C-alpha cells in the first residue's frame, strides 16, 4: 500500500512540476522580454504585475473555437499536440531534483530522456503535414531538416559528460560531478545547450515557425486548446532542456548545504538557464537556413567530436 502511495506521490510531484514550471518560464519570458524591450509587459491580470497573465491566456484559449481545416487529416491533426506535449512530461520523470528526490532513477537516464525528447518532435511534423496548408508543410519540412542537423551534436555532447561520469544514470552523473568539470566540459555544455535550443525551435533557431515568412509554421492552422498545448510543449521543452543541462553540466543539486537545499539549487540553476534562453531570444535575430545548417555541421559537430576526444583522453589518463 505504501508503495502505491509513494508512486502516486511521485507522479503527482512530477505533474505539479510539469504544470507549474513552464508557466513560470512563460511568465518570466513575458516580463523579462518586455523589460529588455523597454516595455512593462502584462500588468493587469491577477493584479500584481500581471502574475496571472498565463492563467488568463489559458482561459482564453479554452474558450476559443476548435477549428480543423476541411482538407486536413483530422485524426493526425488532432493527435499532433498530444504527441508534442506528452514526451516532455515523461522526460521529467527521470530528472533528479535533489539527492534522492527523483521520480524514477533509471539506469539509462540520459538515453531515456534523449529518446523521449526525440519522440516529441514528431508532433510538429504530424501537425504540419496534416494541416493541408503549404506554410504548415514548409514549417514541418524545416523542422525535420533542423532536427536531423542538431540531433547529432545534441547526443554527442550528452555522451561526453556520460563518458566523463562513467554512467548514463542522471543521478550517477550528478554524483560524479566535480566543479572543475565546468571548465573541462564547457564546450560540450555550450554545444548541448545550443543544439537543444535548436531542437526546441526557440529563437534564434526558429526557422520552422518563422512568423514573418511562413506565418507560424506547423502551428498555423491550430486554434484554441490545441494551439495552447503546442505552446505549452515549447515551454515544457525549455524546462526539460534547462533541467537536463543543469543536471548534466552544472552539477545539479551541488551547492552549499546540498543535503538539505539540493532541490533549491537544481531549481535555481534551471531557472537561471531558462532566463538565458529568454535572453538569447531577445538578443539575436533569426538564423537563415544555410547559417543554421552550417552552424550545426561545421560548428557544433566538430566541437562535440573534439570534446568527446578530450573527455576520452582525460578519463583514460585519470584511471
Amino acid at each position: 500500500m505504501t508503495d502505491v502511495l509513494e508512486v502516486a506521490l511521485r507522479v503527482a510531484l512530477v505533474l505539479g512540476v510539469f504544470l507549474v514550471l513552464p508557466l513560470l518560464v512563460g511568465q518570466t519570458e513575458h516580463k523579462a522580454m518586455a523589460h529588455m524591450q523597454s516595455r512593462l509587459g502584462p500588468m493587469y491580470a491577477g493584479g500584481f504585475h500581471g502574475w496571472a497573465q498565463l492563467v488568463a491566456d489559458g482561459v482564453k484559449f479554452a474558450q476559443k473555437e476548435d477549428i480543423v481545416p476541411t482538407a486536413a487529416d483530422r485524426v493526425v491533426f488532432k493527435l499532433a499536440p498530444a504527441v508534442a506535449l506528452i514526451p516532455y512530461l515523461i522526460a521529467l520523470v527521470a530528472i533528479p531534483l535533489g539527492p534522492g528526490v527523483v521520480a524514477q532513477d533509471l539506469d539509462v537516464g540520459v538515453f531515456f530522456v534523449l529518446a523521449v525528447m526525440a519522440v516529441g518532435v514528431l508532433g510538429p511534423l504530424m501537425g504540419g503535414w496534416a494541416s493541408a496548408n503549404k506554410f504548415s508543410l514548409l514549417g514541418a519540412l524545416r523542422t525535420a531538416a533542423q532536427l536531423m542537423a542538431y540531433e547529432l551534436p545534441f547526443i554527442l555532447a550528452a555522451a561526453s559528460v556520460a563518458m566523463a561520469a562513467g554512467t548514463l544514470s542522471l543521478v550517477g552523473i550528478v554524483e560524479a560531478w566535480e566543479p572543475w568539470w565546468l571548465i573541462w566540459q564547457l564546450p560540450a555544455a555550450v554545444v548541448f545547450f545550443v543544439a537543444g535550443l535548436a531542437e526546441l525551435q526557440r529563437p534564434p533557431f526558429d526557422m520552422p515557425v518563422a512568423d514573418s515568412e511562413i506565418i507560424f509554421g506547423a502551428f498555423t492552422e491550430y486554434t484554441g486548446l490545441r494551439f495552447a498545448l503546442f505552446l505549452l510543449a515549447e515551454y515544457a521543452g525549455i524546462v526539460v532542456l534547462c533541467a537536463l543541462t543543469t543536471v548534466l553540466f552544472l552539477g545539479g543539486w551541488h551547492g552549499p548545504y546540498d543535503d538539505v537545499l539540493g532541490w533549491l539549487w537544481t531549481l535555481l540553476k534551471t531557472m537561471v538557464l531558462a532566463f538565458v534562453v529568454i535572453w538569447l531570444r531577445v538578443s539575436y535575430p533569426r538564423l537563415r537556413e544555410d547559417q543554421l545548417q552550417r552552424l550545426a555541421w561545421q560548428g557544433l559537430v566538430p566541437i562535440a567530436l573534439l570534446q568527446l576526444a578530450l573527455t576520452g583522453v582525460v578519463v583514460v589518463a585519470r584511471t
Partner: protein
Amino acid sequence: MKIPGAGLAKGLTVTMRTMTKRSVTQQYPEVKPELPPRSRGVIALLEENCTVCMLCARECPDWCIYIDSHKETIPAPPGGRERQRNVLDRFDIDFSLCMYCGICIEVCPFDALFWSPEFEYSELDIRDLTHGKDRLGEWMATVPAPPAHDGHGVRPKEVDAALKALDKPARERPARKPAPGPESEDAG
C-alpha cells in the same frame, strides 16, 4: 584584435542593460500623462467673446467649424439709438475632421477660442465627435491659465509706452497709474 564571439556578447549586454533601465511605457489609464504646456487636446469656446465674425470658419483648412447666427436688435437706451448685434445660434466643431492645426484659435480676433489639453473625448459613433457650443463651452473649465511672460523676452509695447510716460515729469501729464503689463487684458 577581434575576439570571436565579441559581437554576440555585445548583443547580450545591450539587452541586459536595457532590462535594468526603467521602461518607457506609460501606464495611461491609471497614471495620467504629464502633458507638455500648450498641448493641443481639444478646442474650447468662450461664447461671450464670439462676435460671429466667421473668421475661424473661413480660415479652417478642412471646414470643420459650422456657425449659425441671427441678428438681434437691442432696444435703444434713453437718448441713444437702437443697436444690432449678432447672436450665436450654433457653433459646432467636427473633431472627426479637425486636424488640430490651431489656425482658428490664431485668427480669432476676440479670444473666443482656446486650446485645452483634454484629450479623452473619444466616442463610439463618429457623429458624436461634432461638439456643439455647449460642449465646447464646457471645455473652457479645462483651459489652463496663460503662461507667465518670459522675463527675458521683449516687453509688450504697451508696457514700454507706459514706462515712457512714467519717466516724464509728472507735471507735464495728468497723474495716472500705469498699468502693469502682464496683467493686461490682452495677455492671454
